[in-house]
């Protein structure tokens, strides 16, 4: 698939940057057009792989932003994007849209810029182009607090309404103890980039002559065409590097080479591990509408039979017959990986949790706001109101 990729806000820009990095390292060529949009000048300076002229600052003339971000306020984020919509539109002028199959908009939903400006950008893209627009959204963890949860719950509605599919990533599922502030979300962003790129770069070269079983862009787009929320599972195994022997032998190294049945079992096992390992957003697999399995790696290692039995296993597991499975031949890959897309999953406990945290936060904010003026006034005046202000 060929993509136009747009990162909105700090988190969104970083994910796009990590996608470009992974592409670069694995010799893929998925992102044909790149753009990052930010409201804070300092965040715009961070990407390593996004060219300077593909970064735009919005809201630099807005009273509440002025190039210093939107202070985590989703309303201000939406406002500045609407205000600078002409500038955003102009940035798409040089995108040769007939060269891309789809557009991806990545954003963090807990902050202000991604959550607020993201949907505004998507709405504009939907007006301008016929190509599908996919959202890639990071959901804040519980410990990021009430305000991010409220931003995310509101923004999620806008995103899902406007995109053709919303691929969700749950920060909480990926939080781990050892991370320092410096690493921040780097590791999580990398994990997400690997999944997205492995998934969408399958069928990147559609005229592939390698396998009749190869996945192509239209299969992926068909699976994504559900208007819902999706989750991605992933697993990989390193191909051992003993070059004297054939690839097949390398793969079978620690197994006894007993033939096709073992290969098939390995493929099935890998797919199974992809679904049962951390999904980008934990969900009830049975609630998925459609699914897609891609095996990416040297084609001689991907057993046709294995893919078929993996497909059957997932058909049972997800309780849907709408499952496509295929391979993405990567002759020089050092890993064999399985990526599983679960499209339109409707049972995601984390979304429910965010919504309930958001409702509490909204109530709390309203309650405080109602009392604020009066409490300040009570504080600065004495009990009997005998003291006058100096002016």
């Amino acid at each position, binding site marked *: 698939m060929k993509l136009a990729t747009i990162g909105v806000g700090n988190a969104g820009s970083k994910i796009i940057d990590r996608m470009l990095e992974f592409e670069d390292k694995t010799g893929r060529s998925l992102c044909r057009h790149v753009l990052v949009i930010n409201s804070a000048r300092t965040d715009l300076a961070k990407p390593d792989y996004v060219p300077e002229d593909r970064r735009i600052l919005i809201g630099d003339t807005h009273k509440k932003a002025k190039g210093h971000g939107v202070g985590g306020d989703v309303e201000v984020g939406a406002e500045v994007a609407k205000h600078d919509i002409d500038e955003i539109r102009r940035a798409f002028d040089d995108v040769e849209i007939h060269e891309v199959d789809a557009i991806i908009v990545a954003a963090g939903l807990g902050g202000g810029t991604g959550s607020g400006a993201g949907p505004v950008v998507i709405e504009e893209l939907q007006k301008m182009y016929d190509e599908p627009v996919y959202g890639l959204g990071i959901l804040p963890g519980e410990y990021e*607090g009430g305000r991010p949860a409220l931003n995310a719950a509101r923004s999620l509605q806008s995103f899902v309404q406007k995109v053709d599919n919303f691929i969700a990533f749950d920060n909480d599922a990926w939080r781990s103890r050892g991370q320092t502030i410096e690493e921040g979300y780097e590791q999580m962003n990398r994990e997400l980039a690997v999944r997205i790129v492995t998934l969408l770069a399958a069928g990147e070269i559609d005229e592939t002559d390698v396998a009749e079983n190869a996945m192509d862009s239209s299969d992926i787009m068909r699976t994504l065409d559900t208007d819902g929320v999706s989750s991605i599972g992933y697993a990989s195994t390193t191909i051992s590097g003993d070059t004297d022997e054939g690839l097949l032998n390398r793969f079978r190294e620690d197994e006894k080479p007993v033939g096709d049945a073992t290969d098939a079992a390995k493929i099935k096992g890998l797919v199974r591990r992809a679904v049962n390992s951390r999904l980008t957003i934990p969900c009830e697999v049975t609630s998925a509408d459609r699914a897609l399995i891609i095996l990416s790696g040297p084609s001689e290692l991907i057993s046709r039979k294995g893919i078929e039995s993996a497909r059957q296993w997932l058909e049972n597991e997800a309780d849907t017959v709408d499952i496509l499975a295929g391979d993405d031949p990567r002759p020089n890959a050092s890993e064999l990986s399985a990526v599983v897309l679960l499209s339109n999953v409707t049972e995601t406990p984390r979304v429910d949790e965010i919504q309930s945290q958001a409702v509490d936060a909204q109530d709390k904010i309203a309650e405080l706001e109602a009392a604020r003026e009066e409490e300040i006034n009570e504080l600065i005046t004495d009990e009997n109101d005998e003291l006058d202000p*100096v002016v």
Partner: protein
Amino acid sequence: MKLALIGVGHAGSRIVDRALERELETGRDLCNGNVLVFDTAADAFDDITHVPSECQVRFGDIHPDVDADGVGGDPDLGVTVAREDVQELRRAFDAVDFNDVDGLLLVAGLAGGTGGGAGAVLLEELQAICDKPIYALGVLPEADEPDHCALTASRALQSFVEIADNVICFDNDAWRSTVSYTDTAESEADRPYDELDRTAVSHVMTAFGASESAAMTTAAENRIDASDITRTLETGGVSSIGRATLELDRSDDGLSWLPSWLPLPSWLAGDAVDGPADAAEVKRLVRRAIDSQLTLPCAVDSTYRVLVVLSGPPTAVSRKGFESARYWLEQETGTVEVLAGDEPRPDSATLTATVLLSTVTDVPRIDALQERGRTAKEAVDESEAGEAEFVW
């Protein structure tokens, strides 16, 4: 966040002077040279050493009731002379480039005639000519200062809160126990203001000056931007700042003699990263920042919005710990509006947590001040009824 600093009265001017001194010491550039001090007394600027003389403005001195000591602690006279000289004060603001800063901070002792009285007039003027947020740092008097100081401070606080976008308070009384006092301190000159001023300045500068350090070479994962601070303070009222510092014992691993650029194998470097500030320690530090002395002691659960900045080497701070600390603040303060950011100082041997509690509404110290103010006012009223002249 860049802030123009405006000092009014003796205390205000002194604190602004200390702020410039600290800019030099820490390499944090808060005001970009946008600074002004105002006073009515003749010797007002004698001990000002860092504010350039062209930024020192004396006013009101032609008024018949103003002598060499200025307005003599009378806030109403402070208001009167400021209004009379308003053209001159406005002209003085030409020296400040409002486009060069993200906001203004007017610093004043609320108990002073010039600070509390003329300070309020200056706030009005600033609001009229500048569309950036205008904050005040108001210093509250000590308990053993005369009652009329409490009266002036109570009245000035009302006006400051009405006019400014937010008033950060520093309570000299709460902090006096932390500085060394000579028992013989009788006159104002003997009071250890210098240390109190420095304390106020260091709190304000770590809260507002995060991300303004010239030495900052690493990008913050989550930088505190001017918009974050503005949003935190936009709820108005009175605010307080807490702070705590943790010494990072980085010599523990016995490798401190190695140059820091030398990449250590992970089995050696592992401890240096995990050791100093793990999740629990970061959380304890943030907790200590609000459990320890606040610039204005207050009930933490009466806060409307919170900003927390963690300043130190980013490799030594557990992100999970910082997240839990943030979450704990949310529980403790009872507000969901808690913004958190980090200020990377890779070579620092300390980790500092600064917490800005915006719009605190339960402040016993202010109630007590008003109570004393009322007593003073009654005394004034009585003496006026008896047509005796009240001497400030």
